[in-house]
C-alpha cells in the first residue's frame, strides 16, 4: 500500500471513530432514558443501568394517568390550531415584505425582527392582565392561540427570506395575465413556497409543543388546560420517587416530535438553514 492511500485509510478511521464517539454522546442519554423507563419501581431508584425485568406496563400506567390524555388533546389543539392560524396570517405579511415596494418596508422588517427577538417575559405582565381582566380567558390556552391569528414574527421573517428566492418574473407574468395580487399569491406564489411554508409550520408546531412558559402563565391554575410540556413537570412532582414512570412519560412526550421529524426531515433542515444564512 502506498503512503498516500495508507494516509487516506488512517484519516477515514480517525474521522469515523470520532463520529462514533460523538454519536454515543448524542444517543446514550436516549438509551438510558428508555432503559430506565422499562425498570420496576424499586430498580429505577438504584444505580443499575440494565432492567432486571422489562416492565412494558409502565407505558400503559403513564397513558392511563388521569389527565394525561387531556394534556395530549390540549397540546394538539394548541400546536395544530396555532400552526394553522400562524401560516394563514403570516403568509400575506411575508409576501408584502418580500415583494411589494413601499416606504415603510425596511422599518416594518426591522420591527418584525425586533418582535422575533423579544423574550415573551418582557411584555408578559400587561399581557397577562389583558387576558385576565379584559377578556377573562386565563385558565385556558386561548391567550396563546388567539395571538397566532395575527402573524408570528419568526414565521413572517422565515417566509420572507424564502419568498425572496422566488424570481419576480413569475409574479410579473401572472400580473400580465390579469391576476390581482391575491390571486397571484394564491395561484403562483403559494405552490412555489410550499417548502418554506412546510418549514414554518413545523417550527411553529414544535414551538407550541415545547412551550412551557406560555401554559405556565395562562393555564397553571387549571389542570384541565395543561399541555404535555407543562403537565410533564407536575407528573414528576406527583410521582417523585418513580423515575421509571417519569422517564416513560418523558419518552411519550419526546416521541411524537421525533416521529414527525422523520417524516419531514428535509423541510426541517432546510428551514434551520434558512434562518441563519442569507448570502
Amino acid at each position, binding site marked *: 500500500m502506498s503512503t498516500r492511500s495508507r494516509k487516506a485509510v488512517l484519516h477515514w478511521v480517525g474521522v469515523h471513530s470520532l463520529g462514533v464517539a460523538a454519536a454515543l454522546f448524542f444517543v446514550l442519554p436516549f438509551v*438510558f432514558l428508555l432503559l430506565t423507563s422499562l425498570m420496576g419501581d424499586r430498580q429505577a431508584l438504584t444505580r443499575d443501568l440494565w432492567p432486571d425485568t422489562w416492565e412494558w406496563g409502565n407505558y400503559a400506567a403513564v397513558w392511563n394517568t388521569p389527565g394525561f390524555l387531556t394534556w395530549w388533546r390540549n397540546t394538539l389543539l394548541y400546536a395544530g390550531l396555532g400552526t394553522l392560524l400562524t401560516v394563514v396570517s403570516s403568509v400575506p405579511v411575508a409576501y408584502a415584505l418580500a415583494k411589494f415596494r413601499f416606504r415603510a418596508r425596511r422599518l416594518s422588517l426591522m420591527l418584525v425582527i425586533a418582535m422575533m427577538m423579544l423574550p415573551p417575559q*418582557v411584555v408578559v405582565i400587561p399581557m397577562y392582565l389583558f387576558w385576565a381582566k379584559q377578556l377573562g380567558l386565563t385558565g385556558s390556552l386561548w391567550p396563546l392561540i388567539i395571538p397566532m391569528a395575527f402573524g408570528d414574527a419568526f414565521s413572517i421573517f422565515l417566509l420572507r427570506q424564502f419568498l425572496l428566492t422566488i424570481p419576480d418574473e413569475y409574479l410579473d407574468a401572472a400580473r400580465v395575465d390579469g391576476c390581482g395580487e391575491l390571486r397571484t399569491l394564491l395561484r403562483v406564489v403559494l405552490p412555489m413556497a410550499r417548502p418554506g411554508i412546510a418549514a414554518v409550520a413545523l417550527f411553529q408546531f414544535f414551538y407550541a409543543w415545547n412551550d412551557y412558559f406560555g401554559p405556565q402563565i395562562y393555564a397553571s391554575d387549571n389542570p384541565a388546560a395543561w399541555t404535555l*410540556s407543562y403537565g410533564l413537570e407536575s407528573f414528576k412532582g406527583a410521582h417523585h420517587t418513580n423515575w421509571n414512570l417519569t422517564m416513560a412519560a418523558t419518552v411519550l412526550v419526546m416521541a411524537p*416530535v421525533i416521529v414527525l421529524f422523520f417524516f419531514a426531515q428535509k423541510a426541517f433542515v432546510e428551514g434551520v438553514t434558512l434562518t*441563519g444564512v442569507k448570502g
Partner: protein
Amino acid sequence: MTAAAAPTAAHTAPDGAPDPAARARRRRSALRTAAFMSPWLIGFAVFFAYPLLSTVYFSFTKYDGFRQPVFNGLDNWSYVFTDSPAFWPAMRNTLWLVVVMVGCRVAFGLGIGLLITKIKTGTGIFRTLFYLPYLAPPVAATLAFVFLLNPGTGPVNTVLDAVGLPTPGWFTDPSWSKPALTALALWGVGDLMVIFMAALLDVPKEQYEAAELDGAGSWARFRHITLPNISPIVLFAVVTGVIQAMQYYTQPLVAGKVAAGVIGGSGQQFEPGYPDKSTLTLPQLVYNLGFQRFDYGTACVIALVLFTLSMAFTALLMRRRGGLIGAGE
C-alpha cells in the same frame, strides 16, 4: 404606526405632475399593502407596542394587580440596581452563560459541523443522530438530564465512579449546576451543526486545493481558509447564542424545580435559582417577582432590562453594513 406610514408614503411621494390617475393607483397600492400587512399590524399594536408601553408605565408604579397602580417614581429601579438580592446574581449567571455556555456551544457546533462534512460513510445516519437531541422538548430533555446527572444513582456518576473519577453533585451543587446546564445545551447542538455544515460546504473548493499545493497543513487550512470564509456565520451563531442565553428560562427553572424535589406543578412555593440562586436568570426573576410575589412594578423593571439587552444584541444582527440577517435591501 406603520399602518399610518404606508398610505402616507404613497400619498405624499415626491411627484411633479398632479395626475389623478397615477394618484389613485398609488392610493390603491398603499391600501393593498396595508391589507396584506394587516394581521401583523394589529398583532404589532396589541401584542408588542401596547404591552411594551404598559411595562414602561408599570415600572414606575407600585402595583400588585389588585389595587390600582400607584406612581412611585424611580423606587423600583433603584431597588433593582442597589437592594435586590436577586438581580446581580441573575446578571452574573447570565454573564457566565454568555461566556461559557455560548462559547462551548459555538465551538462544539463548529466541531460537529466539521466532523459531519468529513464523514463519508453513513453520513445520513450520523447527521440524524447528531441532530435528534435538538428536537427533544426542553422540559423532557431537562428531566432526562436531571435523571442522568442524579448525584447518587444517575448513570453518569455511576460510570464516573466506576472509572475512579470524582462524582460532582451536578444540578444540586451551586458550582456544578451551570456546567450541568451547559452539558444539556451541548447535547442539543443540532441547530448550530446544520448551520455550520451549510456554511462549510459553501467554502470554495479551489481555495483548499490551492492551499494544499502550497503545502499548507490541515490547521493552516482551517485557520486561513475555513475560518475567514465562515466568520459571518460564527458571528451569527455567537450573537443569536447571546440573545438565547439572556432569555434562558425553561431549562434552568425545570432543572432547579426537579433537582430541589419540589412537588406539584403550580410552582407557587418554588423560588427559582436552585441551588443557591446559581441557575437564576432574568426571565425567571420576572416570573418570580410578577407571578409569585405580585410585585408587578419591580418585575417590569427586570423585563425592561431584559428588553434593552435583547434589543442591543439584535441591533448587532441588523446593522445595515455587515448586517447578519439581510434586513438591508
